[in-house]
């Protein structure tokens, strides 16, 4: 049976007591509708049935069987049938369904109907489900309807055109001129639609954008008309604002057309200032307009006073009580940091305050902005502020906070001591959220960059922290590792011992003598000797009862331990129920390492063995294996091997992967047009531009960029995008023709550190004279491969290239670049880039390390595909940090024998 009316069905569903009842009703009704579709071809029945299906759809039940019926209903001559039929189509169908091709014809017919509302339905449906194909088929109709005499049709046609262009940008051209005419339409609905259409066109085609720029005067006029009407017509006003929807749409389009055009920005300056100063922002509508205006002012190359005005308005928003307004202010300021760092920095205190707001959306935005604000000058207070929030932060934020904290500390912290201290705090509070990569960075920092006194302090901190709390996973891992490696530094007398030598045995001899004067003083100052205070019980640590996070103003606790205490702590960790199995494995290793540090203390050795034997029967296979093997290792017959096994690990040498710089401001990633929102400071045009793109100009740009660097890491992104591959260490540089314009080739920019230059210059550098001697030997000398060719030697760094070839790939020359540090100081952040002529293809693999301590070397592999066997000419750019100074140099090399091709 079937309920006759929609209303009856709705009522029947509403009286259902349980979900099962509801399902039953719907199942029966669906079956009835299906039968009706099959047996009854009347549009009247269909009209009712499709309405019922719409309801069933909203309840979340399947309705696909009604798709075809919707199409049939839409083909009915009656308006009411079409109305319901098309509604069904927009809800049940999407552009991916094949059945849609059946729709094209009825849409086409209806768009030629004499009834406005039927045309409207067709346009509306088109705008909802049109696929690329349908868009192509119907675009002539849409174009014609743009000229309709009825405003109702014009606005709908313009919005249907938006969909057409979205689906197939190539169809944009014919709409361009028409949209322009619609912009001055007297109906606001048509204007709105025209603005939407032009915005869409400009996003898709450069031609449209050029045209769009010419529309700026019209836009200014329309916006002024809206602003100047003292008593806005009742039809369009909202809370005494004259059509805010249109105002915002125009402001938005202004942003699109004026992006990257200083002229357009200048034309808009007055009207934007007018909006920004005259709009009353105490109501939501006013705030919406000001917000849009501020975003536009910041996104186009507008003049400085306007930009400052925009930032200040957003700053006022921050202090406002309305959470919505504060939310948008925080979000917009994050984006603005990129270009307006100093003005935004002024609102730092308010932003920090917002991190503790009661609303999670506000907190999220405030956190993002706080991280975006971090720079070299304020890194210390900012990190402190964020660390204060970390313990109480939402769980879902913690991983990203901890990650970004690690990045901020590493990128901006200068003193290694401070970096270690802050990382320990991060670990102690958010150790469960630290990712493995950050943890390894930290360990690497301590092992290879810290000196012994820092290592000692870090180990002592770790010992004290672990005695307080072992609930933070990565804290346990880092702490246990450090204790295992540097246990000798942890015990009291190592102050003296460490100064004399690194030799383990010697340290132990002294360590057995106990505390010396200095250390007693330290203990005295603390007022309570650690040994007595630490309440590590027989059966474990302070489990369950996790102590509060250490206040940021307090110093990190430091503990000096007796060897026996160390063994006891590690044993307790092994017995703890909250420490992960993986960490217990590391703890076992640390424990056995203690045997090397305290080799001459039999009592320690025996307590280590005692603990190990307790774990020989562990349920965990790995634990059991390690315990058994380590116990064996400590037995007398392996004395000779043991010293070597348990001695301190050499500092890790693996390459450090630097942090991506946008880590701190993901908003920046979303703003794709970053490079063109700024006024002249950095103009991409310089790279490919006219003759004026002289060295001086480019140098100025580079200098500006360098200044910006100091202000915020985010401005690095500007550079990053300017010379995309230049800052990435792992990149495949394929010299694309587009980056080497003819002009750049004519006048190679000597000092500009741009990729374009790098490539352009290389391709025109005069061919080197190959000596006749080299040529004669050329035929045989595969011996030229495998030799080291020195390409650079200055500033204490020497670079050699060793070419080689694999028989499998005769067209590929592999170069092994070796960087020898022959200076006095360590080199870090080594970055080496190579460019080759266009006929060759280049691949640079990551270097074996970016840090080269004095007297050592690192290597990097470079592959050059040289199918045409032309002479190898390289242009190279080297940058590195030495002694706190940033060094950069660029040089060419073409001294390979002609056999090396």
């Amino acid at each position, binding site marked *: 049976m079937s309920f006759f009316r929609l209303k009856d069905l709705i009522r029947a569903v509403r009286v259902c007591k349980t979900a099962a009842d509801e399902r039953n009703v719907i199942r029966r009704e669906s079956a009835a509708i299906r039968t009706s579709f099959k047996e009854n071809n009347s549009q009247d029945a269909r009209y009712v049935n499709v309405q019922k299906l719409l309801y069933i759809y909203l309840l979340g039940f399947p309705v696909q069987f009604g798709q075809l019926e919707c199409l049939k209903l839409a083909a009915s001559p009656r308006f009411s049938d079409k*109305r319901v039929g098309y509604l069904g189509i927009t809800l049940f169908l999407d552009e*991916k369904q094949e059945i849609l091709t059946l729709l094209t014809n009825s849409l086409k017919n209806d768009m030629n109907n004499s009834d406005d509302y039927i045309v409207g339905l067709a346009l509306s449906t088109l705008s909802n489900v049109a696929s690329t194909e349908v868009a192509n088929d119907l675009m002539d109709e849409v174009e014609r309807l743009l000229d309709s005499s009825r405003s109702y049709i014009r606005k709908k046609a313009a919005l249907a055109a938006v969909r057409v262009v979205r689906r197939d940008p190539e169809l944009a051209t014919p709409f361009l001129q028409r949209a322009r005419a619609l912009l001055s339409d007297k109906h606001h609905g048509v204007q709105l639609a025209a603005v939407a259409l032009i915005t869409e066109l400009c996003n898709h085609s450069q031609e449209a954008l050029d045209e769009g720029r010419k529309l700026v005067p019209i836009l200014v006029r329309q916006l002024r008309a809206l602003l100047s009407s003292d008593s806005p017509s009742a039809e*369009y006003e909202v809370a005494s604002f004259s059509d805010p*929807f249109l105002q915002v749409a125009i402001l938005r389009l202004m942003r699109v057309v004026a992006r990257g055009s200083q002229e357009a920005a200048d034309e808009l300056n007055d009207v934007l200032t007018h909006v920004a100063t005259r709009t009353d922002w105490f109501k939501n509508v006013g705030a919406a307009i000001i917000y849009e205006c501020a975003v536009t002012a910041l996104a186009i190359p507008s003049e400085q006073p306007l930009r400052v005005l925009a930032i200040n308005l957003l700053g006022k928003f921050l202090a406002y009580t309305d*959470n919505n307004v504060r939310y948008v202010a925080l979000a917009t300021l994050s984006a603005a940091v990129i270009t307006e760092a100093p003005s935004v920095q002024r609102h730092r205190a308010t932003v920090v305050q917002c991190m503790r707001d009661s609303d999670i*959306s506000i907190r999220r935005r405030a956190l993002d902005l706080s991280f975006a604000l971090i720079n070299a000058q304020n890194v210390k207070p900012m990190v402190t502020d964020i660390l204060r929030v970390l313990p109480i932060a939402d769980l879902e934020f913690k991983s990203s906070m901890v990650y970004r904290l690690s990045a901020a500390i590493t990128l901006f912290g200068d003193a290694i001591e401070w970096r270690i201290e802050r990382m320990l705090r991060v670990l102690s509070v958010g150790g469960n959220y630290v990712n493995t990569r950050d943890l390894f960075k930290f360990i690497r920092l301590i092992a290879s960059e810290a000196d012994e006194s820092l290592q000692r302090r870090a180990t002592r901190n770790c010992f004290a922290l672990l005695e307080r709390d072992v609930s933070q996973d990565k804290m346990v891992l880092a702490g246990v590792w450090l204790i295992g490696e540097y246990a000798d530094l942890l015990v009291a007398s190592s102050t003296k011992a460490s100064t004399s030598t690194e030799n383990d045995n010697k340290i132990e001899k002294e360590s057995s003598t106990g505390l010396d004067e200095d250390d007693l003083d330290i203990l005295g100052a603390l007022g309570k000797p650690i040994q007595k205070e630490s309440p590590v019980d027989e059966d474990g640590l302070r489990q369950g009862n996790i102590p509060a996070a250490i206040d940021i103003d307090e110093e990190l606790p430091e503990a000096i331990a007796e060897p026996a205490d160390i063994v006891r702590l590690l044993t307790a960790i092994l017995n703890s129920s909250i420490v992960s199995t993986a960490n217990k494995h590391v703890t076992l290793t640390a424990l056995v390492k203690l045997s090397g540090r305290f080799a001459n203390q039999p009592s320690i050795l025996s307590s280590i063995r005692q603990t190990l034997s307790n774990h020989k029967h562990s349920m965990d296979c790995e634990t059991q294996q390690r315990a058994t093997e380590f116990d064996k290792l400590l037995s007398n017959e392996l004395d000779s091997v043991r010293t070597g096994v348990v001695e301190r690990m050499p500092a890790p040498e693996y390459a450090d992967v630097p942090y991506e710089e946008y880590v701190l401001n993901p908003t920046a990633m979303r703003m794709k047009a970053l490079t063109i929102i700024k006024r002249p400071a950095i103009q991409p045009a310089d790279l490919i531009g006219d003759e004026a793109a002289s060295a001086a100009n480019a140098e100025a740009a580079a200098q500006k960029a360098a200044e910006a660097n100091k202000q915020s890491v985010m401005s690095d992104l500007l550079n990053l995008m300017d010379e995309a591959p230049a800052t990435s260490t792992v990149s495949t540089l394929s010299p694309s023709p587009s980056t080497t314009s003819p002009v750049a080739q004519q006048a190679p920019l000597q000092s500009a550190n741009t990729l374009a230059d790098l490539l352009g210059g290389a391709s025109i550098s005069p061919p080197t004279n190959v000596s006749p001697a080299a040529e004669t030997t050329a035929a045989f000398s595969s011996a030229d491969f495998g030799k080291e060719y020195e390409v650079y030697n200055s500033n204490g760094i020497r670079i050699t290239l060793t070419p080689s070839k694999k028989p499998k790939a005769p067209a590929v020359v592999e170069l092994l670049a070796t960087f020898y540090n022959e200076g006095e100081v360590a080199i870090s952040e080594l970055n080496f880039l190579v460019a080759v002529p266009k006929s060759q293809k280049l691949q640079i693999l990551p270097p074996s390390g970016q840090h080269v301590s004095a007297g050592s070397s690192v290597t990097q592999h470079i592959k050059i595909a040289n199918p045409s066997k032309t002479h190898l000419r390289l242009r190279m750019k080297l940058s590195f940090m030495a002694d706190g100074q940033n060094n950069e140099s660029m040089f060419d090399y073409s001294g390979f024998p002609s056999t090396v091709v």
Partner: protein
Amino acid sequence: MTIKYVFLVSRQGKLRLSKWYSTATAKQISKTIKEVSQLVLARKPKQCNFIEHRDTKVVYRKYASLYFIVGVELDDNELLILEFIHRYVECLDRYFGNVCELDLIFHFQKAYFVLDEMVMAGELQESSKRTVLRAIAQQDETETKENAERGWGDINDLVELLDKY
């Protein structure tokens, strides 16, 4: 202003209307509705009206027992979307005459028709309330006339009146 979707849920989480302007499969749609409703229903009254869900900014506003939820692009003007939601509610209110949830349950298709006069292709179509309502009224008139031709008369409306009072 690029609206990706509009949907209405009751305080109990029942869907009252849903319209997608971006292409999505039925599965994605129901997943989004479920996730976003959960997030929105859990919000407290004093909190701001915006949340983020995947790559969409969700703007919502509560009217009586109904939540109006709009998903937009990340760079859209959230404050204006709030105004749009309010404008939609005003239009519904004017159309139904003091709208209540029951009106939207029994006449959900009308709510769709009003929305279709206000938004097309995810863009705002009309900023004048009067134009929207006039267009709807004229279309309704045609529909009533046609239904009379079918011989159905205005029985629906009578039943409904009895329901309401």
